[in-house]
């Protein structure tokens, strides 16, 4: 029997996740193709929520489509577009559709996307939304009203790996408010990731000691295979939290896209013993994921 995402993670197995991008329109053809590439290749599929503030089909609907197609979705839910009522409605909707895995994040600001005139909602922030997801699971809504049926979720969040000061305290708050797994930003600096894992482990132990949390959090490292030196430099300059070291850029100059895959699999082999899985982001090219998973050597096997 194939283990579900939550069971696999919680029983200490290494997981692989990837992403599908909802369509910007009602045409589901590309989405079905993408699901097809990922089916049987990854343990669960993230469904993004108007990522980069570009309007697309909602993650609730697309998560249901992923589930109907026989794969396990991780529904991303941001704070950008919905107030606390709509967020609760969507979470209950997810429960109603049998969607268990939720990944909560703040969300890119509308000014960065394709509808910059939209009102940025941000009624709650990610910590408050994590708390709200916890309330719903405890059977009450935001105002304390009893629910007719309490949903059950496996809740995660996102994190950078270069944390200090307020960012570090925020990471801790996410754990305190119910995040059970984290998908990190793309890892290129393995030493930095090791430091992050050590720090995360320390915080986990501290919170376990205080009985704030009962379990160990799971960390799924983000992996974005480099496609070109241009991409590497672009990310260094434009994407917060991502630093591609110069030595990888030099290798990309010599080896091109193929070298990017080699680098990705090297990073994974160096970090896999300290983390709980990898989240592969191919920036829309889901057809590349099976090759990467094979390089890593991790097709989901039956347990």
């Amino acid at each position, binding site marked *: 029997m194939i283990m579900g995402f939550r069971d696999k993670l919680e029983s200490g197995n290494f997981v692989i996740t990837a992403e599908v991008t909802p369509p910007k329109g009602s045409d589901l053809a590309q989405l079905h193709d993408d699901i097809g590439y990922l089916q049987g290749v990854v343990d669960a599929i993230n469904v993004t929520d108007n990522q980069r503030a570009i309007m697309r089909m909602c993650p609730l609907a697309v998560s249901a489509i992923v589930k109907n197609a026989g794969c396990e979705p991780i529904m991303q839910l941001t704070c950008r577009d919905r107030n606390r009522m709509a967020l609760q409605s969507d979470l209950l909707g997810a429960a109603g559709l049998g969607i268990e895995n939720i990944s909560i994040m703040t969300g890119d600001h509308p*000014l960065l996307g394709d509808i910059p005139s939209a009102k*940025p909602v*941000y009624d709650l*922030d990610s*910590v*408050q939304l994590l708390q709200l997801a916890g309330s719903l699971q405890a059977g009450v809504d935001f105002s304390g009203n009893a629910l007719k049926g309490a949903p059950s979720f496996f809740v995660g969040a996102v994190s*950078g790996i270069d944390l200090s000061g*307020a960012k570090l305290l925020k990471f801790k708050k996410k754990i305190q408010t119910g995040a059970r797994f984290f998908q990190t930003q793309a890892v290129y600096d393995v030493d930095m990731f090791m430091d992050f894992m050590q720090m995360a482990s320390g915080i986990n132990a501290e919170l376990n000691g205080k009985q704030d949390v009962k379990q160990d959090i799971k960390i799924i490292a983000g992996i974005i295979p480099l496609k070109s030196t241009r991409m590497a430099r672009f990310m260094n300059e434009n994407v*917060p*939290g991502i630093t591609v070291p110069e030595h990888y850029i030099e290798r990309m100059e010599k080896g091109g896209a193929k070298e990017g895959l080699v680098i990705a699999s090297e990073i994974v082999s160096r970090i896999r013993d300290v983390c709980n899985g990898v989240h592969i982001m191919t920036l829309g090219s889901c057809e590349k994921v099976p090759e990467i998973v094979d390089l890593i050597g991790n097709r989901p096997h039956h347990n």
Partner: protein
Amino acid sequence: MIISKQKPFDEILEILSGIDNIFVLGCGKCAKKLRTGGEPEVLAMRTKLSDAGKNVVGYGVKSTACTMNSWEEFLDDNDNYDEDGNKNSIKDADAILMMSCGSGLSVISCVSDIPAYPALDTTAIGGVLFDKVVSEQCVMCGQCTIDVFGGICPSTRCPKGMMNGPCGGSEDGICELGNDRECAWKNIDERLDKLHANQSLEIIQKPKDFSKPLK
């Protein structure tokens, strides 16, 4: 202080399209300080409107645009002659072009039988720091907890209004929105550090109650 800025002149002309006999009214408080609606700005607007073919029947600067105690008194106060002996009267106006914040325009509209039109856009509550105007100091949430954040309001200064910040979008202390906008949470972190009050950041801040301002 309420921060306002002048609308582009073509927009003002668009607003006043088909309207003539205009009285230009400034405000002696925030708009005067900001140089968006004090006497020099009112005079400059009068000239621009006349050059654009509008009939400006008069101008004035109300000491406080958002305080209106008597419309009749206000009419009489603005019914006179300028230094060249020309009539300068609001009583001849079909429109008042308000060079004040939205509040001034709104208050005057409550009592005025002459329609009022905005020459300014109101953008923020701010102040003046070392002679420089600072914007974005308060968003009037009606439930102030600014002390928790060392006096830097995250609802105001963080574009996402995060109470438990920062978000993952800031890089090297610069906000996700760029333009050299400093991450408010970096500022809060540094300020609390100075005050030896970083433990505030460990507290899980609750969401704002949006019913408060309306109750």
